C-alpha cells in the first residue's frame, strides 16, 4: 500500500477499512468481482508514479526541447502570434472558471453563464449578425457545422466552397460531409488576383448547393469580395458562410453587413496562445431565422424566482441530451474557457484597440511585403489587396529559403509545399503586432543576404 499517501488520494488505510465495513464487503477487490475473471488486468503496464518535483522536471525538459521564435517568427496560416495581455491570462485561469463544469445548475453557475452571454453578445456585435452560440471546437469544425446548418435549412445536400479556404478547413468539412454523403465541390481562385472566382447564376455550380463557403481573408491572405459571393449564393437559393479571422473585424466590413447568412471563425487570435494548434475555440453567428437550426449551447436571459435578472442555458431542445438522434449536432463540451479568454480580450481592447491592432498588423505586413518584393526574385504570388498575411514566390526554392533564413534567426513563413504538393517556390508570411519594426528590418536584411546565395544554387532545389 505505497499509495495510501498518494497526494491526490486523501483516504487513509483506516478510512478505507471503515468504508468497506459500511458497504459490507471485506476488501476493495470484492467490489470489482462483477468484472469477469478472464477480463481482469494484472497490472497497468506503466511506470510507477513520480513526485510533483520529478514530474515538473520531466515535463520542463520536454518544453525546453522546443524552440520558440517570438517576434522572429512569421508563421500564420490559421494560427497567429498575437500579444496576450496579462489580465486575460490571469482572469481566465481563475479556478472558479477553470474547474467548473457546464453550467447545468444555473443558480451556482452565474459566472459562467454571464460570461457566455457576454461572449454571444460580442460575437454578434463583431459580425453584425443577430445570434451567436456559446462556441464550437475551432474554426475548421465551426465551418463544417455551419455547412450542415445551411444544408438543414435549405434541404439540399451539396456544399460548394472556395479553394481559398484553409486546406485543413476543407479537409474537416470533407470529413464531416462523408457521413451523410454530402457533396463537396471547390471553386478555384483567380490566378492573377488570388480571389475566389465569383460564380454567376448560370454557371450551374450553385444549382444544387445549399451552401457556399468563403474565407475572409482567404488562406493566402487575400481579401475577398464577400458581397458578390452573397449575391451569387442567394440567387441560387444557397446560404453564404463566411469563415473570418476575427482580428480583421475591427477594420473590415463585418460579414453580416456584406450579406453572409452565417459567420464562423477561429478565436485563437483573441488572447488564446498558439499552444501548438490548440485549444482555441470556434465562433458561429447567424441570422435570427436560423436559430432553431443552430448547433451547440446557448445562454439566455430570464428572471429568477425573486424576479431578478439571471441567465440560463436555453433552447436545449436542439441539443443531443434532449433531442438525442434528432439533435442539430452531437456537440456537448465546447471550448468555454477559450471563449471566455476571447471575451476578456475583447473587453480589454474595446472597439478602438481592436481597430488599432488590425491597423498595426496591416501596416507592418504591407511594409514587410513591399520591402521583400523589392528584393530580386521575390514577388507576391497574388495581386489583390491583403490584410496581414501574404504569399510570396521565392525563385530558387522556398525550401532553401526557409532553411537559410532559419539559420539567420528568422522563421520566415509557412512553406506551402506542405499543403500543395509541387508548390516549391511559395511561402505564406504573416505579420502581427508582435513582429516589431526591428524584427521586420532583420527579416529584410537576412532575405537580401540569402537570396543571392540561393540564385547561385538555381535551378535544382536541394532535397533534404
Amino acid at each position, binding site marked *: 500500500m505505497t*499509495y495510501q499517501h*498518494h497526494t491526490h488520494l*486523501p483516504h487513509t488505510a483506516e*478510512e478505507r477499512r471503515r468504508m468497506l465495513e*459500511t458497504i459490507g464487503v471485506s476488501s476493495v477487490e470484492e467490489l470489482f468481482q462483477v*468484472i469477469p475473471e478472464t*477480463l481482469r488486468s494484472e497490472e497497468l503496464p506503466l511506470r510507477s*508514479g*513520480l513526485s510533483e518535483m520529478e*514530474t515538473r522536471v520531466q515535463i520542463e525538459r*520536454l518544453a525546453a*526541447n*522546443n524552440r*520558440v521564435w517570438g517576434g522572429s*517568427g512569421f*508563421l500564420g496560416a490559421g494560427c497567429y502570434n498575437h500579444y496576450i495581455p496579462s*489580465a486575460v491570462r490571469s482572469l481566465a485561469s*481563475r*479556478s*472558479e472558471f*477553470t*474547474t*467548473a*463544469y*457546464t453550467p447545468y445548475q*444555473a*443558480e*451556482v*453557475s452565474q459566472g459562467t453563464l454571464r460570461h457566455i*452571454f457576454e461572449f454571444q*453578445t460580442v460575437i454578434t*456585435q463583431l459580425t453584425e449578425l443577430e445570434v451567436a452560440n456559446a462556441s464550437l*471546437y*475551432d474554426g475548421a*469544425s465551426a465551418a463544417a457545422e455551419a455547412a450542415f446548418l445551411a444544408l438543414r435549412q435549405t434541404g439540399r445536400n451539396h456544399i460548394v466552397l472556395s479553394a481559398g479556404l484553409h486546406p485543413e478547413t476543407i*479537409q474537416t468539412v470533407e470529413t464531416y460531409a*462523408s457521413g451523410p454523403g454530402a457533396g463537396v465541390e471547390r471553386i478555384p481562385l483567380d490566378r492573377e488576383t488570388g480571389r475566389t472566382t465569383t460564380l454567376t447564376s448560370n454557371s450551374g455550380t450553385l444549382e444544387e448547393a445549399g451552401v457556399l463557403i468563403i474565407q475572409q481573408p482567404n488562406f493566402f491572405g487575400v481579401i475577398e469580395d464577400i458581397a458578390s459571393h452573397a449575391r451569387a449564393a442567394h440567387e441560387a437559393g444557397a446560404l453564404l458562410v463566411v469563415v473570418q479571422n476575427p482580428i480583421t473585424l475591427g477594420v473590415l466590413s463585418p460579414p453580416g453587413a456584406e450579406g453572409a447568412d452565417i459567420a464562423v471563425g477561429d478565436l485563437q487570435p483573441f488572447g488564446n496562445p498558439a*499552444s*501548438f*494548434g490548440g*485549444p482555441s475555440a470556434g465562433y458561429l453567428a447567424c441570422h435570427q431565422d436560423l436559430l432553431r437550426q443552430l448547433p451547440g449551447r*446557448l*445562454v439566455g436571459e*430570464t428572471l429568477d*424566482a425573486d424576479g431578478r435578472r439571471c441567465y440560463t442555458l436555453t433552447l436545449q431542445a436542439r441539443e443531443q*441530451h434532449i433531442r438525442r438522434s434528432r*439533435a442539430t449536432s*452531437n456537440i*456537448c463540451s465546447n471550448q*468555454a*474557457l477559450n471563449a471566455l479568454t476571447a471575451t476578456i480580450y475583447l*473587453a*480589454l481592447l474595446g*472597439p*478602438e484597440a481592436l481597430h488599432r491592432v488590425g*491597423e498595426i498588423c496591416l*501596416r*507592418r505586413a*504591407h511594409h514587410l511585403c513591399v520591402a521583400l518584393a523589392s528584393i530580386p526574385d521575390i514577388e507576391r504570388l497574388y495581386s489583390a*489587396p491583403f490584410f496581414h498575411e501574404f504569399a510570396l514566390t521565392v525563385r530558387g526554392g522556398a525550401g532553401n529559403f526557409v532553411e537559410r533564413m532559419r539559420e539567420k534567426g528568422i522563421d520566415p513563413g509557412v512553406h506551402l509545399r506542405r499543403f500543395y504538393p509541387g508548390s516549391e517556390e511559395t511561402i505564406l508570411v504573416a505579420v502581427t503586432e508582435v513582429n516589431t519594426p526591428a524584427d521586420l528590418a532583420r527579416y529584410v536584411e537576412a532575405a537580401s543576404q540569402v537570396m543571392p546565395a540561393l540564385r547561385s544554387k538555381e535551378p535544382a532545389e536541394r532535397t533534404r
Partner: protein
Amino acid sequence: MMGTTEDRMGIQKLIFQKSYPGQGGLAFPEDGVESVAVEKLLPGIALRDRPPSLPEVAEPQIVRHYTRLSHLNYAVDTGFYPLGSCTMKYNPKLNDELAGLSGFSALHPYQDPKDVQGALQVMWELEQALLAITGMERMSLQPAAGAHGELAGILMIRAYHLDHGGEYRDTVIVPDSAHGTNLATAAMAGFSVQEISSSERGTIDPAILAAALSERTAAVMLTNPNTLGLFEEDILEISRLVHEAGALLYYDGANLNAIMGKARPGDMGMDVVHLNLHKTFSTPHGGGGPGAGPVGVSRSLEPYLPLPLVKVEEESGGDITFSMDYDRPQSIGRMKAFYGNVGVLIRAHAYILRMGAEGLTQASEDAVLNANYLRARLRDAYHIPYDSTCMHEFVASTAHQKKQGVTTKDVAKRLLDFRMHAPTVYFPLIVPEAMMIEPTESEDLATLDEFVDAMLQIDQEASTDPDRVRTAPHSTPVRRPDETRAARHPILRWTPEDTE
C-alpha cells in the same frame, strides 16, 4: 461563492453596462513603420463603417468584473461536485503550470519538426500511456472533446464497412441508457439509430441484443460501466455476438475512471474507444471545455484514424526523432485544424506520469469505494432502483420523496444550499426522477459524510417541510431561473435597450 447581498449591489451588471465611451483596457505601441491610411492600403475594399459596440472599460474595472463573476461560480476547487458521468475529480495545479510553459504555449503548429520535438514527444508518450491503459492498438489525440472523438470513431466504422463490402450496414444500436451524444453522433455520421431496452438488472441482455443485430448493423455503442454505474457482466458474450454479426463494438470512455488497472476496453473486444481526458485524466472542464477526446482503435481500424498521427523514427546514431505522419491514404481525414487540444494533452500526460500504474489503479479503486460507500449510506432514505455493487457511480431516485411532492429537481436545488453541487439529474432516461451520483476518488471521508448528512436532512425536510425543498435554493446568488420564459422569448445577447 458570494451571497445575495453582493449580488444586489450591482454584480448583476454585464460588462457592457460598465462601459464608458473613451475608456479602454489595452493600448498598443506605435506602428513603427509608415502610417499609411488603411483606405490606401486596401483600395476598393469594404471597410467597417461604424465600430462594433464593444465595451469600453479600463483594466481595473475589467479585472474586478470578471473576478466577481468567478465568485458566482461553483467549481471543483470550491466544493464537492458529484456530477454523474462527468468525473469531476481534482485538477492538479502543477499541470496548468506545465501546459502554460512558453516552450509549449508559444509553439506554432507549422514550425519545423526540429523545433517541436518536445511537444511531439509529449503526444507520443501520452498516446503510448493511453494505449497501455485501454489495450488498444493506436490512438489519435486530435478530437477536441468526447463527442468529437465519437464522431471520428463512427466515421472510422463507416469507412471500415465500406472497405469490407458492408455498405448496406446503415444502423447503429445503442442501449436505452446511452448518453445522448451516442445517438446524435450516429445520426450525424449518416446512420439510423436503433435503441434496445436494458434488462431488469439494468444491463444489456445478450438475448435482446442478439435479436436486434442484423446484417444492417454497423456498430453497437456502449459504455462500460454503463450509465447506471453497472459493469456489463456479459460484455464478452456481447462482443462475440456483435462480431459474429459482422458489426463493430464502440466504447464510450466517459466511465473509464471506474476500471483503470482493473479491465481494459481492448480486452473486452472493443474496436473503437474514445476517452475524455477532461474526465478520467484530470484536465479542468473549463465551464464546458476545452476537453480532449482521443479516439483509439483495434488493429483492423488503424488505417482509418484521423490525420495526422505522431510518428517516431530511430536514426542511425540511435537518436529518436518524432514527426507527423500524413501518409495514411485510408484515413477518414481531419476532425479539426492542427493536432488537437495540445494544452489539454500536456496536462493529461503530467497527470499520468505523476499517478503512475499504482496511482491510477488506486484512483479507480477509491472512486468505486466512494460510490459504494455513498450508495450504502443513502439506500435507506432514497430509492436505488438497481441496488447492486456499483462501479464509480450509481443512480438513486426520489421515488420515496415524490409522495411528499418533492422531485429530483427539488432535491438537487436544495443541495446547492448546502454548498454542494447537484448530481446529474433526470439521466439515464430509463430511471424516473434519476439522480446520478459520482463522487470521484478526490474526496475525503469527511466530505462524503457531509454529503450524506445533507441528503438525509433533505429527505427529512421532504416530510417535515416540503416547501423548503420545493422552493430551494434559498442561499445562492440567484434563485431558480424561469426557464420557460427564457425559451419562449429568447434573449440571447445584450442590447443597449436592455438595462435595468
